[in-house]
């Protein structure tokens, strides 16, 4: 449960509180965030709040604050609930920029809300780091202060297609069934182009409107096209529904990659064995092989908690056993990127920090972080592909991040009914 008092700063560790280093003054720097704790994005909002809190905890307690010159800054998070609504986002971002004097803002969830916040951030010259607005076009509008931490929508399904091509070069017939929203459209437009480039033939492409509760018309029709591979989905609810009805109507494919929904444990809880073998793109997943060692090999800095540390702190912060979803880690990475960039720039001036961001490249639990100086778009980070195997979510792509082999083709629905798992 989210409790209001969690807003308070993580109390400084006793050691720090008692013996402040004499030569270094400890001051506070505020990061601000409008977060969707109510409304349609509250699921993502809650996760990102926890993620931010973990990152801040790490900065304050493990890292000893952000060091700029001879000063040490503790980070404190100012956040408000935007209820997933644009009016609130705008007034709250302004409050953060003026009343709270925040210079570093973590963008709200979703492309729409990020776009709503952008003019205000731009007006007050505060930085805004997008950790939940995937659409590429946000970064094509010429905003200077807006940067991106997560991989853009155009990247979501490309990894999966690469993977299929590699495992089964003969697979050709591809079906696309996805939610008609701007996010999914951005994903699948790019995916389609990419698929055709790889030599897939798109035999079926249909969308369903948001809020659909019965996909049988599409699936009944799809069956006739006998696709081998399916990519689709959009969000949580429809992703669950799509797979559940594919099972009911016995629409068998060799592999299916569904957006968002399968990355959550609730997906398997809801579908059980039916979830076996389903793929999904993820910005991050427990078990990714990002570590200080990997960073060293690549010759870039590691910044932030290791994966173990992160998971442990996440448990503390959230007060529950829920594992973090990628939304949490994205948000954490956005916070870390601020801290890292501030230290690099040795300045708290958003403009200077923004300049510095153009040049930095580092790795954290979330992976690599690097933006395109031109647009602010994320280009360093790579997505992973997860798959449900034997009740576990494993990472199967890209090979350098994978902790398991992809299971292909996925068992048929009939086989799954008999209890067959996607496990060797």
């Amino acid at each position: 449960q989210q409790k209001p008092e969690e807003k308070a700063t993580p109390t400084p560790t006793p050691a720090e509180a008692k013996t402040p280093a004499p030569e270094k003054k400890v001051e506070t720097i505020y990061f601000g965030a409008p977060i969707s704790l109510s409304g349609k994005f509250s699921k993502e909002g809650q996760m990102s709040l926890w993620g931010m809190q973990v990152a801040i905890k790490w900065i304050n307690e493990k890292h000893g604050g952000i060091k700029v010159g001879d000063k040490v800054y503790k980070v404190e998070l100012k956040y408000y609930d935007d209820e997933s609504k644009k009016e609130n986002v705008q007034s709250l971002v302004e409050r953060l920029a003026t009343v709270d004097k925040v210079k570093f803002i973590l963008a709200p969830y979703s492309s729409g809300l990020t776009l709503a916040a952008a003019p205000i951030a731009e007006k007050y010259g505060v930085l805004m780091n997008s950790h939940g607005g995937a659409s590429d076009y946000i970064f094509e509008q010429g905003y200077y202060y807006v940067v991106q931490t997560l991989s853009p929508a155009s990247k979501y399904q490309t990894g999966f297609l690469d993977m299929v091509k590699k495992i089964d070069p003969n697979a050709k017939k591809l079906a696309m069934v996805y939610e008609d929203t701007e996010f999914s459209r951005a994903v699948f437009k790019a995916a389609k182009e990419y698929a055709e480039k790889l030599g897939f033939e798109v035999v079926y492409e249909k969308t369903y409107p948001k809020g659909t509760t019965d996909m049988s018309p599409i699936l009944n029709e799809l069956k006739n096209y006998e696709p081998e591979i399916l990519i689709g989905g959009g969000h949580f609810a429809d992703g669950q529904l799509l797979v559940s009805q594919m099972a009911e109507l016995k629409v068998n494919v060799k592999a299916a990659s569904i957006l968002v929904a399968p990355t959550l444990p609730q997906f398997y809880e809801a579908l059980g064995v039916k979830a076996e073998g389903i793929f999904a793109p993820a910005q991050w997943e427990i078990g990714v092989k990002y570590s200080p060692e990997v960073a060293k090999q690549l010759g870039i800095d590691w910044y932030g908690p290791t994966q173990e540390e992160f998971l442990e702190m996440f448990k503390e912060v959230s007060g529950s056993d829920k594992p973090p979803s990628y939304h949490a880690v994205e948000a954490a990475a956005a916070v870390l990127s601020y801290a890292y960039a501030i230290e690099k720039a040795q300045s708290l001036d958003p403009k200077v920090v923004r300049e510095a961001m153009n040049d930095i490249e580092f790795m954290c639990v979330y992976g690599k972080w690097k933006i395109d100086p031109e647009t602010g778009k994320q280009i360093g980070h790579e997505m992973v592909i997860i798959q449900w195997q034997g009740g576990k979510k494993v990472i199967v792509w890209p090979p350098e991040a994978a902790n398991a082999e992809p299971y292909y083709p996925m068992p048929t629905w009939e086989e799954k009914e008999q209890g067959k798992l996607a496990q060797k």
Partner: protein
Amino acid sequence: MKPIKDVIPNLIFLIILFVIGSSVEGMWQPIALIIFYVALGQAFNIFLGLTGYVDFGYVAFLGLGAYGMALAIQNFAHLGLVSIAIGVVAGAIFAAILSLAVGGVALRLRGAYFAIATIGVNEGFRFFIEGTRLWGGTEGIVLSGFMRKTFGSETTNFLSTYVSDVALFFVAFISALITSIYLRSRIGYALLAMREDEEVAKVMGINVTKYKILAFITSAIFAGIIGSLAWTLKLTYVFPEDVFNIVYTVEAIVIVMLGGAGTLLGPLVGGTFYALLKYYLNVIFPGVQLLILAPILIAVVVLFPEGLVGYLKKKVRGTKLEDFVR
């Protein structure tokens, strides 16, 4: 001029809001939030207050207004800022056309039937845009970059973070003024009669449909203007899912009911109350604010079923204050 006198309290109230927004640091966007709700409420109240009909599909007019502005900017940006004026007019015209079409059909229905049938119009329209991929379909129209290129970053920022809000002050005031003019004229009495008993009104010589449509179109036009300003100009993008979101109709109802339907000050008080309550609850209790808001709303409506201004209006009836609470 009685109608003008009646809205003087509104004017004073709005000026106070404006002054606070301009002078207190960090208050501009909260005031913009208030003025958005106030303008929405005032515009909605033209129709609801005068006819007693609730238009659940009201947001469709906002949505169309938003598209009107978006298309104007897309097509007339070479005319410079004139395109913004064209956008406001286009928003108004789009909304007026739709309201004429909808009104012609739906205004034959009564009470709750009308209210709900209009949801169908709104949803239907949205699905039409999504289904035919008209105006970008679900991908909508994103204008920030284009506007920044054409008008310059400074100007665009100024337009979307200041001009759009200031314009809403005018919308809020003018819609109250029009309500007031209507109320004091034959239109107001015709609709009063209609509200009470449509059949009797007809027998008494009132062309009910004419007056209903008049109020409907007026209200829709203001909605179109609000849509063009508060959506497209302020946010610089239009997504059908957002602009046709019924939440804004529900909020309009909430605001008007909090203040008092058919009163001139009601939307102002209701909108301010609602926006401030929400804003500060968001700030102080992020995450649980709606849990606190809900009982407050219920309590207000149970205590003041006729709204805050409605209640006050009754209280001051026959006293000197009567002229100031309308």
